[in-house]
């Protein structure tokens, strides 16, 4: 009896050690460099701290202050503006491309490569290139607009056009990524579904709405979840293209977090805003995961 029990305990221990051996290489860095700092940020958010002198505990003051500060509302609004422009543009564009490239087309791989190229390019490069393309007086976009008699706007130098410029550059960069994911989803749809729809006399649009889109819904769901998670965290392109300007017209949440920390030395406020953003992202993601049963079709 005892030997059996000891033996079982030994195999149990051995199994636990195996699990640990597989998990620790990733768990240690995640704990030390993501979850740990995150909890620390929660503590920082309850303090007044300029990164130099010792932190002072202030309770929920930072949150209260942020909630009553009109800047907070403004930066969240700018972020939503970004998402509202960006998401439909990349999704519809990516879907159109995926549908087109899913047909028997010569040089498909090459074309896919071209559409994917911006995805692998760094944000700094994209921002530099788009600032140059959208340069108000000598940028090629305004020069071409000039040929057809349109006086182009000031793009990133104009408060009203700064965000559209960022949306344009972001959509250009991410279109290929959305295309690849939707393409993968399209290739998983069995062709006999289309054959059956054709036999029933369904036209192209009908097939799109009754076969393709419902069966593509898991990929669509993935694109929307990831795009929203990334969209709320939009930063690199804003930092490199406009720095949140002109006059704060494109100041998004993370840009504000960055400025609070490194420009104004308000680490406590920055951490509080970070946590508010994290909670918003988490809530938006959970709502989507809950809501997916209504429209996502896992076949």
């Amino acid at each position: 009896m005892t030997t059996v029990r000891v033996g079982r305990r030994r195999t149990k221990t051995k199994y636990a050690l195996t699990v640990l051996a597989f998990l620790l290489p990733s768990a240690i860095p995640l704990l030390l460099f993501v979850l740990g700092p995150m909890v620390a940020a929660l503590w920082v958010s309850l303090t007044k701290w300029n990164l130099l002198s010792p932190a002072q505990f202030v309770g929920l003051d930072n949150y209260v202050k942020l909630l009553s500060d009109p800047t907070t509302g403004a930066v969240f609004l700018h972020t939503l503006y970004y998402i509202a422009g960006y998401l439909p543009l990349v999704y519809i564009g990516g879907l159109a491309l995926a549908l087109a490239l899913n047909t028997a087309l010569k040089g498909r791989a090459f074309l896919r490569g071209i559409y994917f190229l911006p995805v692998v390019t760094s944000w700094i490069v994209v921002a530099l290139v788009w600032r140059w393309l959208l340069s108000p007086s000598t940028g090629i976009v305004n020069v071409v607009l000039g040929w057809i008699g349109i006086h182009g706007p000031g793009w990133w130098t104009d408060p009203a056009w700064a965000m559209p410029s960022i949306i344009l550059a972001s959509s250009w960069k991410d279109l290929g990524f959305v295309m690849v994911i939707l393409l993968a989803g399209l290739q998983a749809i069995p062709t006999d579904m289309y054959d059956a729809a054709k036999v029933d006399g369904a036209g192209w649009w009908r097939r799109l709405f009754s076969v393709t889109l419902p069966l593509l819904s898991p990929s669509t769901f993935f694109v929307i979840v990831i795009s929203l998670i990334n969209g709320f965290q939009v930063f690199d392109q804003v930092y490199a293209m406009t720095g949140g300007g002109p006059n704060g017209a494109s100041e998004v949440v993370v840009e504000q977090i960055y400025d609070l920390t490194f420009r104004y030395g308000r680490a406590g406020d920055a951490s509080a805003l970070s946590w508010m953003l994290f909670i918003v992202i988490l809530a938006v993601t959970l709502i989507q995961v809950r809501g997916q049963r209504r429209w996502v079709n896992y076949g």
Partner: protein
Amino acid sequence: MSTRRLVLFILLHVVIIVGAIVMFFPFLWTIITSITPGASLTSTPALIPANPSLGAYGRLFTERPFGQVILNSILLAAITTVVQLVTSSTAAYAFSRLPFRGRTLVFGLYLATMMIPLQVLIVPLFVELKTFGLIDSYLGALLPTFASAFGIFLLRQAINQVPVELDEAATLDGAGHFRTFWSIIVPNIRPALATLVVFSFMSSWNSFLWPLIVLRSPELQTLPIALAGLQGQYISDWDVIMAGSVVSVLPILAIYIFAQRYVVQGVASSGIK
């Protein structure tokens, strides 16, 4: 082919090709600008430069330490990629094949790390690494990139699609978990691994904020930081800035071309289900 289908066929090609040109044009424009000496804010380069020159590229490597900067970026990206392959595949194996109590919760925590903006972590992370004395060192730049929740998610989806019967056969042959992992799972998820190589290399190659904060010495600088520096120094020398952009895209382009067929496959096999 009926006339209607022929028209559709031609229309489709026209749209796709025009689209590709529009997508590629910014790159073409970058290359043209980089070989147009004196391209600046006051003049628009011609589509075909009158006196093309590689002078801007020369200035990158003589006036700025771009050779060193490129080597730094390659080194960091290579280390990140190799480490992420190991940490992601082992964790993915555990989440797919090794049931244990609380696994769903742990996996949920892993996924939650994807939703945390890097900026949230910057201050505590900086203080932490300063305590360890790792500011202004490659280790400091590398450590936070060692585990990737995205990579683990991607590989777990791939391992889930490897038939369990293969593992069972290996177990019957006396293979333990490490052996099964190495000789059954790893060979069967190659497309997903290749996808991860592209994404890991790319994210390290392009990462900006964290290296900007950690790496202080000019000789440790990576490409994106050096590029951002160009914008400050050569404020109106668009040819130099665009030459730097071209140089920074080439290596990542080479990797992508090499792994392209796997990337689509890898995303496809992850099924995103």
